């Protein structure tokens, strides 16, 4: 081969390679263009603690299906709610806003449909078929008129909390008795019906379970699963703390071990029902183009700090589970991400995922880069807020949670402020406020609290 022949061959080879590369890039772009927009399934559990999973090393709760979500997707190990209470947290998931912005500050304040826009409404307006199935639990007369939801199945029993068995449902406006039905399974049946429906457009399903909220009633086949189990309640927990101290106003007239056992058994049912959804997605092949997110609205105390229920700003109350799973959507699955994620991040993330602009009023950040294994950091500190709920003697709270510390302040100084070093003292047993170490930290934490208040438009109201 002479030089001329070599040059011609090289040019031909280069041209062929370039063409092939260009075609490949074009094909990829074309594939991306014609790839249908992803389906979204958001599963919200009620009061499901962040650590009540097998994959979180819980001593006896076995959650193989939920573990598979976390292990086959992304487990956000530092996820939090901005207010640890059902209605405010639910409204924050829907709007991407803090309670002091969306207005649902307590379980008594009404969802203002004119003021608030949910991510479901935005998705609906952009071609998604949407469904809300399960616990709405924001006050108001009957079932609210909510824009942008094609299928709306909910309940109003017990002030919107629902009941575990025979819970009447309001199905697209018509009330229907559900004799013999266990609620987690019943809601999942409706969810599967919606998922498996033939359609041409993408869908977004918001499946909002009553479980594992108080009432703690597992289905019959799971009752007694932990009868012989050492529940390993915290040292400071005593059996009667559900009716003592201020727990009297949030507690339940039953001993703590009984309640905790039932709670854990109820969680097993959540796991079973999530398993049905994942199985359906896999069978239909929809798993390749569906993002599933599993989260809890807030945490729950079972004796830690002598407390029961939630609301205050300790870790057991403010931490939530948050797993994202989607084999065709999440890059490099099987990761644990330590960045601090908030409930208000859900809405912007979902809009970002489907290529829609995130409205300016949304205060969360999109964690889509994390799903796509691209570098990002979410935040270094954030505001926790709690508004007094009548008739419960827990004062208003504002706190700043950094990646290492939490600084908690109380309405009218009803309680002494608290500073905890969560790295050295994860159980939050040693309040550093008023100690030399605390005095050193205080200016920085005060300044951070004021910063996050200002950034989120928080105005002191109590």
């Amino acid at each position: 081969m002479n030089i001329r022949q070599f040059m011609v061959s090289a040019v031909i080879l280069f041209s062929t390679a370039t063409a092939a590369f260009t075609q490949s890039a074009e094909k990829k772009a074309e594939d991306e263009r014609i790839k249908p927009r992803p389906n979204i399934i958001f599963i919200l559990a009620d009061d499901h603690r962040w650590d009540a999973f097998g994959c979180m090393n819980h001593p006896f709760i076995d959650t193989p299906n939920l573990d598979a979500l976390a292990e086959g997707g992304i487990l956000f190990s530092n996820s939090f709610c901005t207010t640890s209470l059902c209605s405010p947290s639910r409204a924050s998931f829907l709007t991407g806003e803090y309670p002091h912005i969306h207005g649902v500050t307590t379980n008594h304040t009404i969802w203002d449909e004119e003021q608030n826009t949910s991510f479901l409404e935005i998705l609906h307006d952009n071609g998604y078929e949407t469904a809300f199935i399960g616990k709405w639990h924001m006050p108001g007369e009957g079932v609210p008129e909510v824009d942008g939801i094609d299928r709306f199945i909910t309940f109003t029993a017990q002030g919107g909390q629902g009941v575990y068995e025979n819970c009447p449902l309001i199905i697209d406006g018509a009330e229907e008795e559900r004799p013999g039905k266990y609620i987690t399974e019943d809601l999942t049946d409706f969810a599967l019906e919606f998922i498996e429906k033939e359609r041409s457009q993408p869908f977004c399903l918001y499946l909002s379970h009553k479980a594992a909220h108080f009432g703690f009633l597992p289905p019959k086949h799971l009752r007694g699963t932990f009868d012989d189990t050492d529940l390993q309640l915290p040292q400071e927990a005593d059996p009667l703390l559900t009716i003592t101290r201020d727990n009297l106003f949030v507690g339940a007239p039953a001993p703590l071990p009984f309640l905790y056992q039932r709670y854990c058994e109820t969680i097993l049912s959540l796991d079973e029902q999530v398993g049905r959804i994942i199985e359906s997605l896999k069978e239909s092949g929809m798993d390749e183009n569906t993002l599933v997110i599993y989260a809890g609205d807030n945490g729950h105390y079972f004796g830690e700090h002598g407390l029961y229920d939630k609301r205050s700003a300790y870790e057991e109350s403010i931490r939530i589970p948050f797993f994202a799973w989607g084999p065709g959507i999440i890059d490099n699955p099987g990761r644990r991400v330590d960045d601090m994620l908030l409930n208000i991040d859900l809405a912007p993330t979902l809009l970002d995922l489907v290529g829609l602009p995130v409205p300016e009023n949304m205060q969360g950040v999109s964690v889509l880069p994390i799903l796509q294994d691209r570098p990002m950091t979410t935040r270094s500190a954030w505001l926790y807020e709690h508004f007094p709920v009548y008739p419960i003697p827990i004062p208003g709270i504002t706190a700043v949670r950094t990646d290492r510390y939490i600084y908690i302040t109380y309405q009218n100084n009803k309680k002494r402020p608290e500073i905890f070093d969560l790295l050295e003292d994860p159980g939050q047993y040693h309040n550093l406020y008023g100690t030399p170490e605390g005095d050193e930290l205080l200016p920085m934490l005060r300044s951070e609290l004021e910063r996050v208040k200002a950034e989120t438009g928080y105005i002191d109201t109590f």
Partner: protein
Amino acid sequence: MQRVTKEIINRSLIPSSAAVIGTVLFTLIYNRSVAVGNPFWNDVAVWSGLIGMILCSFISPLIIYIFGFFKGAGFGERIIASLTAPVLKSFMILSSFFGIFSVGEVLLLLIHHCILAPVVFAFLEIGLASIVCHSVKKKRSGDAAARILFRRESVFLLIGIALFTIFFWRLGHFYYFWFLDLYIKLFG
């Protein structure tokens, strides 16, 4: 006069004061038990606090009423002595709301079942104690015609039963939701 005063002190003031002091002390011990790290001492604090609280705040009316009855205390004296600790306990529970809610909202709590629970239990106990006392008295006297139910004491029993039923029917859910509705009507 001095003898009467001394009798009142012995049969009513000392028992009710003991119940009051016990209520405060054992509530403090129980509430502070969370901070006791040593498992043994934590158990001691929890259980002594709990048992002491139950005895002083909830069981004391029964004991004080019966004690006063057989030591010659009058009806009014027995009632006051029996109710002091439960009323204090109710006030202690109520006080945790101060500074969080408005005066009106706190006043409404005076009909909250959890606030009133110690007093309701005390009413029941006073009613039952009076039956016990009159039964014993009847047995001792051998008077078959002696009554064991008296109107003024039965009123406590009836009020106690009525309030207990209203407050705790369906584990308190019924009254709780009624109370919440009332709150929303009054305070929006």
